[in-house]
């Protein structure tokens, strides 16, 4: 009996979407967006042109089938006078068959 390893073309891969929102609410507006495709050599990059974002809020992404795998973290020490990173980071995934 022999088994055949599934082709990488038929195994779902994890697409990642980092969304930086104005508040921890999924309904708040997105300030930053990074899409990571599970494709060899893929690197998200800073662009000159308007990236034409597909979503205005995290909720928009949920409607489109993305799933949140990490909500914004609040364990870090907090200073109410200081400013640090931009936005609250949601990490989302979609498991899909992806062509290289």
């Amino acid at each position, binding site marked *: 009996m022999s088994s055949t390893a599934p082709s990488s073309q038929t195994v779902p891969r994890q697409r990642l979407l980092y969304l930086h929102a104005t508040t921890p609410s999924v309904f708040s507006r997105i300030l930053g967006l990074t*899409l990571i495709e599970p494709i060899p050599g893929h690197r998200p990059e800073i662009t*000159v042109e308007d990236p034409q974002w597909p979503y205005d809020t995290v909720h928009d992404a949920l409607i489109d089938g993305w799933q949140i795998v990490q909500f914004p973290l609040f364990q870090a020490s907090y200073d*109410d006078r200081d*400013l640090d990173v*931009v936005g609250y980071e949601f990490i989302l995934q979609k498991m899909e068959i992806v062509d290289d």
Partner: protein
Amino acid sequence: MIEKRYLLTDTEVAHFLVQGYHTVESTLPLSVHENIACQLDALPENPGDAILESVPELRQVLDCPAVTGVCHSLMGSDYELKSHRHWHCKQPGDGFMQWHQDSINQRDTRIDRFLALYYPRTVTADMGPTVIVPGTQYRNAPTDRMATYSNFRGQVPLVVPAGTVAVTHHDLWHGTAANRSSARRHMIKFLFRRTRSNTEPTWNHDSESVDSQINWGRTDQMESVAHILSFGNPLGVGGTDQYKERVIRRRCWEQLLGEDE
């Protein structure tokens, strides 16, 4: 003595405190910039901090009234050019550069350190321009924490004509896009420092026209200094961050007026 026409206005200084940058076109002839660019093209290697010795004409750019007017306005009359400077040559095919703040963040309500980014040749969108994120200059965020960002609403590519100098707050977040053109993109970065606190405004300040009152019913009325400092929100951040930014900007403004001590 600097002519008043080269100094910033109250609203320009207020916009700087909000945005973290101000661009100015040098008053020098284009031939000076092209000569500098040609000398950069011919350099066999990057001289690092010695770039001013390798291309002495760069001093003309730093000394031209349009540039000294901005520096004088923001840093006072006896500002200092630091010894660190760097020629950033982005070759055709070079990839993007990730967001970062130079050195370590020293977020403070004193604005003492500045960068001047000089572009001797016109930078087009495909040449790998510097990209900045207005409003990030007060954020105490180590560069490694920026690794999951790629694009922001409100980011600004410095697609600029030859001879432009962008004076930025030292801690402003910046990176570059990829150079997909067939041309080199030159940028020379200089570091400046204030040497003493202001005892009075060092720009074209008009105390009578500066409106210190905030009209909370007209937050869209952005051309008053009070409103620029209070409601400018280039990134579109949430309310809590806006409150913090407002406090920091007001302190910066008072410091520049000489009222801080």
